[in-house]
């Protein structure tokens, strides 16, 4: 039985069941319903994968299945169907989304077992799966946009899931959710404008039509550039790139599985997916592609530097996510669309693993997130420690682990296209290694700094949480094998995705990807390995060795460190540049425009009406006979007019 056409139905059914019956099912029942729903979707995804792979193997270039569900909008010259597009790109995405999603669902059963609102949580999670699948599977920009907004909504709902708690002393969870939503709106605004431009220029929002039209009759350069930049704006919002990344660290207010699922593994990669999907449009405007690369590169190093100084276990991972997303954009910008997607996949594995591991730690630590109060946990949480270590090795890019291959592919592409960004990438790789091992050392090594009452309750998480960790750990190790560099073997993923990026070959400058020579490949791999090891050594010497000494967390640091610790004060800058002027403007609108101008106008018009009423009152005097008089007057006038007219 083919489940893939129903892939959207399962999460929908799951969320409906949970919405109605969730509270009666109990946390296990409710979680089981949600998990099974996602599992069925995952099975459908696997089926779709097999079919698509079969089509790819046939090699006639049209490796795609379209499931048309129904005609959605048909207005004038505009039509949009709700139809699902299964091609290699979307299949890879749904495999990751449903696969990782399933593991996280299972994990959530354990993590949320003590929460009173588990049903609502699983409803949101399923809703998220639904929206994400819609986003990835839609065969036109409109469906993609619906999914796009849907995941944004779920993100907002889940960040503010514990709406009654405070995230930091200054910010409530609800406020964090609002921040995410509003920052995303900025990006969505760009996205929408891009959609309008696409429609006005290509008269369709369907991917095929748009790309075919764009490839053969590109619009004016300015328009194409605008479309590319506006789409990029949308992507930076959703994927937390410069300058719209500020919401992601605050999104850590949500439950940790949410951080793993949405804010690390899946939703934030929507931007990457969208850019990869629109590769034709970007290929037609190389300048924009350069911008993409630079945005990615700068974001990567920017976030990596911040991550080096953070003390909240989830914050470190959040900035790490931003940084890794930057990598992906770097890859996209260097025309390594396949590489970007490859990094999406590997990153989904190890970042989900990291977050879930962090969640396991937090769970064990009774909701303590500050690594300054951890240390030496490897004895108490052996499984968590082991998996976390694997993930760290993977993200740090040590050879053999998944992260190594995907990062290497991106860096190779950058090397051939934007050497400067390659340098940035290598430095980032080193920084990544550094902050991850710093996190490792502070959390799992050294002496325990755990508060006694928390230490008493410290114990390994239940199997329902650790089994997903193990599976993800396995994937983190072997995940890279699907994309081996040419010198080592076949690039399975690249071959699979090739039909998607077929169109690129017809565009000047994007012919067959020029492969680096084997020696250069080896050299590059070596350099990144060295960078990773360098980061590890730096962490070893600067953190692990001095870890227990006084002053490690002291405030007396140099200015740059404090700047990093304060996340470059981007939030403050935004506050100063945007939020405060805006609120000043709003205040101006309130005090001056509204109260003085509008209210006055309203009052004046009211006065006018009143004066008019006073005037009319002279006639409406309540006396029947005066009414009758005016009637007769009118009648006589009318008659006179008629008579005069006639003769």
């Amino acid at each position, binding site marked *: 039985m083919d489940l893939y056409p129903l892939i959207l139905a399962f999460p929908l059914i799951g969320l409906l069941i949970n919405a109605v019956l969730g509270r009666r099912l109990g946390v296990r029942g409710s979680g089981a319903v949600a998990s099974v729903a996602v599992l069925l979707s995952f099975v459908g995804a696997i089926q779709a994968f097999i079919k698509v792979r079969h089509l790819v193997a046939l090699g006639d270039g049209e490796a795609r299945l379209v499931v048309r569900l129904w005609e959605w909008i048909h207005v004038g010259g505009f039509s949009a169907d709700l139809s699902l597009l299964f091609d290699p790109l979307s299949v890879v995405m749904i495999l990751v989304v449903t696969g990782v999603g399933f593991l996280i669902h299972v994990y959530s059963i354990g993590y949320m077992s003590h929460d009173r609102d588990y049903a609502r949580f699983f409803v949101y999670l399923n809703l998220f799966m639904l929206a994400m699948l819609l986003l990835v599977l839609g065969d036109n920009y409109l469906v993609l946009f619906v999914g796009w907004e849907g995941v944004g909504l779920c993100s907002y709902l889940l960040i503010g899931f514990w709406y009654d708690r405070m995230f930091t002393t200054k910010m409530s969870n609800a406020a964090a959710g609002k921040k995410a939503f509003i920052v995303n709106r900025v990006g969505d605004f760009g996205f929408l404008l891009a959609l309008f431009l696409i429609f006005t220029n290509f008269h369709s929002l369907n991917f095929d039509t748009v790309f075919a039209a764009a490839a053969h009759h590109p619009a004016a350069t300015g328009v194409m550039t605008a479309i590319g930049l506006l789409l990029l704006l949308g992507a930076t919002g959703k994927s937390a790139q410069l300058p719209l990344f500020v919401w992601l660290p605050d999104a850590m207010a949500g439950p940790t599985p949410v951080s793993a699922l949405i804010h690390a593994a899946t939703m934030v990669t929507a931007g990457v997916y969208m850019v990869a999907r629109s590769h034709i449009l970007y290929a037609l405007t190389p300048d924009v592609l350069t911008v993409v690369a630079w945005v990615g590169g700068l974001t990567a190093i920017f976030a990596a530097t911040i991550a080096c100084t953070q003390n909240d276990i989830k914050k470190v991972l959040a900035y790490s996510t931003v940084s890794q997303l930057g990598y992906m954009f770097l890859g996209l910008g260097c025309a390594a669309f396949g590489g970007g997607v490859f990094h999406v996949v590997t990153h989904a594995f190890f970042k989900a693993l990291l977050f879930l591991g962090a969640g396991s730690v937090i769970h064990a630590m009774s909701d303590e997130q500050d690594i300054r109060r951890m240390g030496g946990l490897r004895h108490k949480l052996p499984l968590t420690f082991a998996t976390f270590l694997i993930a760290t090795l993977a993200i740090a890019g040590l050879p053999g682990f998944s992260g190594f291959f995907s990062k290497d592919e991106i860096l190779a592409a950058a090397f051939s296209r934007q050497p400067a960004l390659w340098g940035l990438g290598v430095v980032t790789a080193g920084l990544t290694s550094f902050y991850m091992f710093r996190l490792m050392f502070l959390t799992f090594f050294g002496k325990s700094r755990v508060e006694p009452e928390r230490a008493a309750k410290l114990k390994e998480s239940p199997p329902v949480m650790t089994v997903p960790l193990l599976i993800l750990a396995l994937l983190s190790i072997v995940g890279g094998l699907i994309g081996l560099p040419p010198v080592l073997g076949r690039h399975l993923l690249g071959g699979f995705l090739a039909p998607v990026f077929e169109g690129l070959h017809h565009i000047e400058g994007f012919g067959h990807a020029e492969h680096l020579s084997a020696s250069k490949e080896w050299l590059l791999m070596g350099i990144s390995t060295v960078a990773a090891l360098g980061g590890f050594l730096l962490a070893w010497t600067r953190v692990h060795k001095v870890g227990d000494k006084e002053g490690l967390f002291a405030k007396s640091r140099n200015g740059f460190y404090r700047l990093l610790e304060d996340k470059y004060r981007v939030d403050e800058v935004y506050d100063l540049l945007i939020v405060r002027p805006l609120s000043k403007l709003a205040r101006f609108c309130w005090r001056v425009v509204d109260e003085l101008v509008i209210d006055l106008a309203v009052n004046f018009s009211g006065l006018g009406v009143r004066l008019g009423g006073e005037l009319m009152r002279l006639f409406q*005097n*309540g*006396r*029947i*006979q005066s009414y*009758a*008089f005016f009637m*007769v007057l009118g009648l006589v006038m009318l008659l006179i007019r008629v008579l005069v007219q006639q003769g």
Partner: protein
Amino acid sequence: MFDYNHALILAFMLFTLGTAGVLLRRSALVVFMSIELMLNAVNLVLVVFSRLRGDLDGQVICFFIMAVAAAEAAVGLAIIIAFFKRKKHVDLDRASLLRS
């Protein structure tokens, strides 16, 4: 045969008398009667034109006007009675319930 023009002028004068009554008299009853006067003037016009056109429809409409006038009289007089019960007068100048 008499001049139908004169019948029309008679109707007009009757209507004017009725109008004057409606406008000038203070007693609701007399105003009501003046309205009947106006209705009758209209009836006369209808009958004259019915005669001129050789069509009975005018007279049929007259009939309907009379029937409606009867209904109107019943309701109108009931209103006057109800009004009188409250106010002990039927003076339109002092009838100002519409005035707040």
